[in-house]
């Protein structure tokens, strides 16, 4: 009887360990995928030159276009819909929130150091650029792990 009880207990413990391991592995994978998606979104957003101002010789980024581009790249890379809600094919199960979207244009002096105390982010720009901070929640597969949430920070500069 004691052996049977021990057996059942061990089964539970082992399967929980397996679940934990699998969940942690998948979480690291998800973090990596989301970071890449955010990086590519920031990069694409930072390349949206404001052509009207370029004619006047001012190098800057078109805010609306940049914002739209960033959303498109997040959508495509993470299989989200227009409201950044995950679709059936997505890795995620809850909406992606864009917490910070800042475009540094011609009104600051470069090199410019960007600080964000709230998200503990610091970056120096040599050219106009974009800061993108996105909040993501990891959908736990088994619920063995405590819920994981990330603020994923990224930035990119205009390249020409």
């Amino acid at each position, binding site marked *: 009887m004691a052996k049977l009880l021990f057996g059942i207990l061990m*089964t539970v413990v082992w399967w929980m360990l*397996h679940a934990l391991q*699998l969940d942690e592995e998948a979480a690291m994978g998800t973090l990596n*995928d989301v970071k890449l*998606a955010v990086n590519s979104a920031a990069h694409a957003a930072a*390349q949206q030159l404001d052509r009207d101002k370029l004619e006047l010789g001012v190098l800057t980024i078109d805010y609306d276009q940049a914002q739209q581009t960033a959303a498109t*790249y997040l959508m*495509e890379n993470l299989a989200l819909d227009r409201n950044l809600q995950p679709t059936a094919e997505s890795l995620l199960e809850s909406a992606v929130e864009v917490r910070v979207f800042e475009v540094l244009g011609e009104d600051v002096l470069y090199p410019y150091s960007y600080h964000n105390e709230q998200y503990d982010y610091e970056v120096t720009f040599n050219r106009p650029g974009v800061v993108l901070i996105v909040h993501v929640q990891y959908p736990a597969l088994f619920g063995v792990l405590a819920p994981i949430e990330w603020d994923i920070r990224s930035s990119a500069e205009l390249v020409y």
Partner: protein
Amino acid sequence: MKQLLVFILFAAMFCWLMFSPIYKHVLVIRQALLQQEVNYLLEVGASGTYGYIDGSMIAESRLRLTDYGFNPALLEYEVTSTSGAEGGNASEPLPRGVGLRLKLTYPYEQLLNIDRLIGIAPPPEDARIAGRGMRMSEYVP
């Protein structure tokens, strides 16, 4: 005799319990490999040198994935672009600013069939694991 029988039974059961969920790792790793391959192809394809992902790159990618145990015939590559251009045509690379999209899928291959033993229905036949991505083309003519 009885003791021995119990021992063998328990040992076998514990071994099975400890190692049976490992097959799920195959799925996790396969998904990660597909995503890694997509990232690599996009990194190269959307770079300033190419601006496309053509048949020869896909053939090489199939070879790489075969080394990891994928069946190359079952891999499906879908290359598209945001401008509606082909994206897979080496003679017409996507210009800078156009998004190059890639979706790479592979079937589950009955990996989760064993789950039926504990009452979980496996995914449908036509369901596929996928890696996907979109990068901005950097190609400048």
